[in-house]
């Protein structure tokens, strides 16, 4: 037995347990999702009945699903854009300036990322509380009481209110990623630009963003996926999809169909759709941001 063969064997032995876990807990359930989406099944006891693509056809005649999809689309566009923008600006300010309280801000901004989503949702549902909430009380204090409203109870504001929560939750996390990225940019570049008379804003546009571009591309995809998953917890606790489904997102609707309406097959079809949807979205985002590499 040669050294090479032994090394191969060692590598295989190390890989196989992980591979088995991956197949068993990721690949196999995922395949089941695809497979079960072709069936009529309550998800409890009876035998699934094959109905082909009917679940998928039904999906596009389902007003609630389409509304949920629109709401999800709104969050997927709004949240990553603002989150990443805020994260980038904050990261750049905290690394490039000589603020004394840098350390405190760094901790404060990152803090939401270590809180559980449930805690965040409960916290914000009290911030938005129509009478005793921090937001409305604060507005009254500032003499803006006439503009105070039931933010989570109004179909015009509910999605924006949820978006703010999602942005607040994620911005600090991406900020830390960007800060690490900025630290690895050679200070010479900034110094040279500074000598040439570039303002901090110009440095941000022409040095920071291009140098971080690869990291930004990845965080866009992370952020989109984050919205898809986190929105479930936030919506369930803060609004229960209300008022009148105006904050229903695809994940809450999927859950409702699977576990409230006992339509497991239909729920799996929604799951497949979400999967395909997010893969396509990631590909599009990858394609759109590609030219930035050069």
């Amino acid at each position, binding site marked *: 037995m040669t050294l090479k063969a032994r090394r191969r064997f060692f590598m295989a032995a190390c890989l196989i347990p992980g591979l088995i876990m991956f197949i068993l807990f990721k690949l196999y359930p995922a395949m089941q999702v695809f497979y079960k989406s072709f069936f009529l099944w*309550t998800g409890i006891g*009876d035998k699934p009945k094959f109905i082909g693509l009917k679940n998928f056809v039904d999906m596009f005649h389902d007003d609630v699903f389409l509304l949920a999809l629109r709401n999800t689309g709104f969050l997927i566009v709004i949240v990553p854009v603002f989150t990443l923008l805020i994260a980038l600006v904050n990261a750049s300010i905290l690394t490039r300036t000589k603020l004394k309280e840098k350390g405190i801000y760094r901790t404060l901004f990152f803090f939401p990322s270590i809180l559980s989503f449930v805690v965040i949702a409960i916290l914000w549902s009290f911030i938005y509380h129509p009478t005793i909430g921090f937001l409305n009380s604060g507005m009254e204090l500032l003499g803006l009481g006439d503009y105070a409203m039931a933010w989570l109870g109004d*179909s015009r504001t509910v999605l924006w209110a949820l978006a703010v929560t999602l942005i607040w939750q994620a911005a600090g996390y991406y900020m830390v990623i960007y800060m690490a990225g900025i630290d690895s940019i050679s200070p010479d570049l900034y110094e040279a630009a500074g000598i040439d008379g570039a303002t901090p804003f110009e440095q941000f546009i022409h040095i920071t963003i291009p140098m971080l571009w690869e990291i930004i591309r990845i965080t866009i995809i992370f952020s989109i996926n984050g919205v898809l998953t986190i929105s479930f917890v936030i919506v369930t606790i803060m609004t229960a999809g209300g*008022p009148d489904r105006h904050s229903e997102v695809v994940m809450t609707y999927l859950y409702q169909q699977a576990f409230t309406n*006992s339509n497991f097959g239909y729920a799996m079809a929604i799951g497949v759709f979400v999967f395909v949807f997010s893969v396509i979205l990631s590909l599009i985002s990858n394609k759109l941001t590609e030219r930035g590499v050069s």
Partner: protein
Amino acid sequence: MKWHKILSAVSACALSVSLLAGCGNSSSSDSGSSDTAGTSDGGSKKVANGELNIAVFQGGYGREYWDQISDEFMKDHPDTKINITASPKIAELVRPKIVAGNPPDLMYIAGGDNLPILDGLIKDKALTDLSDIFNTDEGSGALKDKMLPGVLESRSMAPYGDGKIYLAPFNFGVLGLWYNKTLFDQKSIQTPKTWDELFAMNATAKDNGRALFTYQGLYPGYLDEVIIPSIYDLGGQKALDQFFDYDPEFWKSDVFKQVWGNIQKFANEDNGLMKGTVALNHTQAQTSFMQGKAMFIPNGTWFEDEMKDAPREEGFQFGFLGIPSFNSGSSVKAMSQIEQIVIPAKAKNPELAAEFLKYIYTDKSIKLNAEKSKAVMAVKDAADLAKPFISETTYNVYKAVDNGMELVNGTFKTVAKGSRYSPKDEVYKTISSLMNKQMTLDQYSDKMYKMYSEVSKELKDSAE
């Protein structure tokens, strides 16, 4: 030599892979083919002995009752052993077991998050017929005569409309409007008997610095406590049947216009609906009510216990009003809600489960339940058996029922398998738009008409 070692290691790896893969396979094929295994196994046993696995909801009532009643049962029936699984999220725990064809022998399922699993089991026809347990006379009269009248015949217990009982009644709640008794006593305000009287109290409410009404905004489903008795009040059982059996014409009827018009009136009248109600969850709304921000709120007999730690205005005392009627002649009504116990069709030991179920209805057990859970079972005179253990407010609510408050109960017909509608959600969630004045009563009625037409068509198609 070395090769040998490697080979054995590789084969060991391969073996473990196939073992794991085998696990995956067997569990998936289990769910398909196990319907034969479970029933034949249980059917052969005649004597009530052996092991009983029960799954119980551990909610506001706790699990102490179940622990003790099991001990008592095991004392009276040597040779038996009861294993209890209890959780607030009991449906999540039993679901995988049911899917694998290995359900508990007896399940007490309650609580909003858990109830859908019962709907699923009903859709699948996966419950044991309990009619014999209630109809058979074992010397001391049939068990069915012990139950509150009308309960066993209701759709909650006999879901297929053929008179056969598949769900056994357990704890019983009364639901309606609540008010602050101290406030009413101190200012000598009369409790309203009709809706006109109630709306006329708006000025009084305003004088006392509160809105007339609030409800659990994020969960408009609580409004059924107002709506269902109101439908019955105006249109009797006939209108209620239309509503629960998906007759689209219901949404064009006068009953609909009056009942929903009434709900809408809270939103339309100045000071009618507490500010921001639509955005509040149940605890927030209930706390606001107890702090004196609103005069009335719908809720059930569990209210006092649920909110025992919540802040309240000084001297607050729970008062139960029920649901006012539309005509001064008819009585005040209230909705009743009864928790359910089931024996799955694939239970391993249905005989013992049946014995245990009968045991639950003994006087000893009813008293124990009252003592440990502070709950009242849906049997005759249960309130009096429970009196030493429950609060005066709660006792009075149950007593009000005995003294002429009419109880109304009902459940939506189970929709066709595969239907994407949950009529309860559709009907109640849409009310948020009415309350926000973003939908008119006509638009609401059109939407519901369409939904009912589709649901009843699906039911017709699936019956063919």
